[in-house]
């Protein structure tokens, strides 16, 4: 990847549907009380990490849960929330008609499609949705177009951030999907495809 970092990659805090084990995709629910506290804690840790250096750019996915998280984080690092840039390429992978379904229901009610998905998780396209590969294309385009400015703060999503980190680290696509999706901390990405977890 061309950008040298540091780049801080955060996921939104816990939402109502995260807690209920429902796939959100590009549908949306608000943060829980725990999720709001996670956002506050991540913002606090980010402020400590930046140590007064202003964020050169602050990007967020335009979905509700990332807007909500980004506003809380921005307040902690004294960044004007009106200056947050919302970019559609930072949105979560959409599972199409599966967005909003409970994961157990999905496995039971769409058993064959789910089995097909497990055969090739990278290229599988859910009905009306996106494959991880398709997400990789839009995330790759976003990274390639990043300005040389630093530090950069990005608030996005679980699956999205796995793809982002996999691309940054130059991993094999199949290995991207084994990465974690923490909500109690975030990653600092730096030159040479390295990353460091920052605990909130």
């Amino acid at each position, binding site marked *: 990847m061309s950008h040298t970092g540091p780049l801080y990659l955060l996921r939104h805090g816990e939402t109502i549907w995260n807690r209920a084990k429902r796939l959100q995709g590009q549908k949306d*629910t608000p943060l829980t009380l725990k999720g*709001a506290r996670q956002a506050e804690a991540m913002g606090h840790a980010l402020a400590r990490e930046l140590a007064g250096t202003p964020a050169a750019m602050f990007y967020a996915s335009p979905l509700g849960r990332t807007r909500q998280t980004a506003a809380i984080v921005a307040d902690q690092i004294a960044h004007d929330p009106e200056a947050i840039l919302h970019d559609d390429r930072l949105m979560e992978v959409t599972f199409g008609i599966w967005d909003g379904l409970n994961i157990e229901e999905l496995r039971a009610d769409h058993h064959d499609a789910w089995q097909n998905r497990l055969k090739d998780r990278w290229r599988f396209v859910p009905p009306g949705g996106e494959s991880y590969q398709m997400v990789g294309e839009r995330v790759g385009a976003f990274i390639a177009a990043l300005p040389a400015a630093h530090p950069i703060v990005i608030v996005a999503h679980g699956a999205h951030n796995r793809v982002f980190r996999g691309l940054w680290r130059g991993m094999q696509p199949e290995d991207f999907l084994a990465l974690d999706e923490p909500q109690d901390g975030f990653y600092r990405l730096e030159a040479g495809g390295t990353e460091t977890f920052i605990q909130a």
Partner: protein
Amino acid sequence: MTATIYLIRHGETTWNRIGRLQGQADSPLTLKGTRQAEAVGHALRAELAERPFRFWSSPLARTRQTSAIICDVLGHDYETITFDDRLMEITLGDRDGYAGWRELARDFPEEAEIRRKDPWNFRHPNGESSQMVQDRVRPILAEWKAKGGVHVVVSHGVAIKILRGLQLSLTEAETFALDRPQEAFHRLHGDGIDVIGVTMP
């Protein structure tokens, strides 16, 4: 059966803080707004004292965010909330999201003049008048009273002022003069209204 209705405004948003007009456009809660929602939840939990209630909310993002936090403090299931469009904020139509009242008066002086003469019936282009908001919230207030019991309602500054105006049979001017607190909420019971203060952390 007598109804008790708790009217709660959403917490501070990023646009509230800079005076930008929201209407039915939206901005997220600030850190302060998030803490206000939590504080309202704690005061409400003490107030409810385990009584059963129904939870109503405007479907806009800032009220959903506020409702989710209050639900968690109350131990109430967010998925059982009734989202009712009649509880949405007054819309300024084409002017939703405008920078502020001063900018509106500067950029649209003719509209500001019409508004000054009859604020209650004034509509921004494609927007709603206060009268139109009153017409949509009046039936829901009557519904809560007819049902009886306890109703927790999360809504907006202007919509709540108009509900309070109806409850107290206020004039238009008196309704406009009401406040829009985010660190207090209102309890409607019988013909009266009480203010319940909130302790911020």
